């Protein structure tokens, strides 16, 4: 299975993401933001964390308009799989591939710590390696992770089983404790916590492994 990791100026989790994906068995291609298109026969696109374009204007806003993102949008519209972590989630929200927006944390602080998450949906490749309602621990590291979506939008997510993860103890003010959301076809996941920073015991936890492994297994069997 082949994955493209998109790299923007200011991305800083791109190599961690590549390591996590390779460890799961993916073949990884790093793709610079100025590329007009993704490599051929890509199964998954991963948009990593960081501070693309210095978070200028709004987090993820400028990255979302970059040449490569038009190709990522086309990949998604063809039914392709996309994972956005942290800044990657902000980019996906800015493209409109995922609903809502991420604004400044409610306590205004940059948060860098492990958080407990509840797996709310296993109905996606990304979450298929977890158990429903399983509590996992992943690190967060963000200043703008406060997920905002109107009540109607939240209801739609609930009705369509598109809330992937919620915080057990809400760190940033996100509506309904939402930490990660899925697209309607469940092939796009955006989340603020960092699964790629929890894939080996030296990280302090390995709860991120199941996301990459589950994803690979499902894609390979599809």
């Amino acid at each position, binding site marked *: 299975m082949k994955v493209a990791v998109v790299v923007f100026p200011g991305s800083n989790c791109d190599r961690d993401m590549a390591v996590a994906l390779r460890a799961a068995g993916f073949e990884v291609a790093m793709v610079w933001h100025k590329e007009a298109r993704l490599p051929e026969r890509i199964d998954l696109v991963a948009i990593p964390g960081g501070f693309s374009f210095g978070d200028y*204007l709004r987090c993820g*806003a400028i990255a979302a*308009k970059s040449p490569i993102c038009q190709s990522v949008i086309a990949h998604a519209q063809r039914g392709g799989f996309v994972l956005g972590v942290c800044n990657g989630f902000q980019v996906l929200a800015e493209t409109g591939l995922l609903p809502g927006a991420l*604004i*400044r944390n*409610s306590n*205004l602080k940059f948060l860098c710590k492990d958080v407990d998450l509840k797996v709310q949906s296993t109905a996606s490749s990304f979450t298929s390696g977890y158990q429903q309602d399983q509590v996992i621990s992943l690190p967060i590291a963000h200043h703008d992770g*406060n997920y*905002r979506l109107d009540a109607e939008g939240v209801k739609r997510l609930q009705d369509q089983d598109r809330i992937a993860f919620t915080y057990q103890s809400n760190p940033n*003010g996100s509506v309904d404790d939402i930490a990660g959301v899925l697209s309607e076809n469940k092939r796009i996941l955006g989340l603020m916590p960092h699964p790629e920073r929890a894939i080996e015991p030296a990280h302090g936890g390995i709860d991120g492994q199941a996301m990459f492994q589950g994803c690979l297994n499902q894609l390979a069997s599809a």
Partner: protein
Amino acid sequence: MLKSGVLDPQGDAVQHALGALGFNGVEQVRQGKVIDLELADMEEAAAKSAVTEMCEKLLANTVIESYTVEILL
């Protein structure tokens, strides 16, 4: 500007700071941004429509933000 109804943590912090400084009666603070554009010569209507398109495509995130365009001659 953040749309009304969208939580504005920064505005809330500014409101508290104003209260701490003794400015009473500040009932709400909403923080936004001003983006100044210098455009090549064009008709006012054309400028307004161009900047509106820029707002829709990039300058504002209309999921959470509203915007107004003002042409200064």
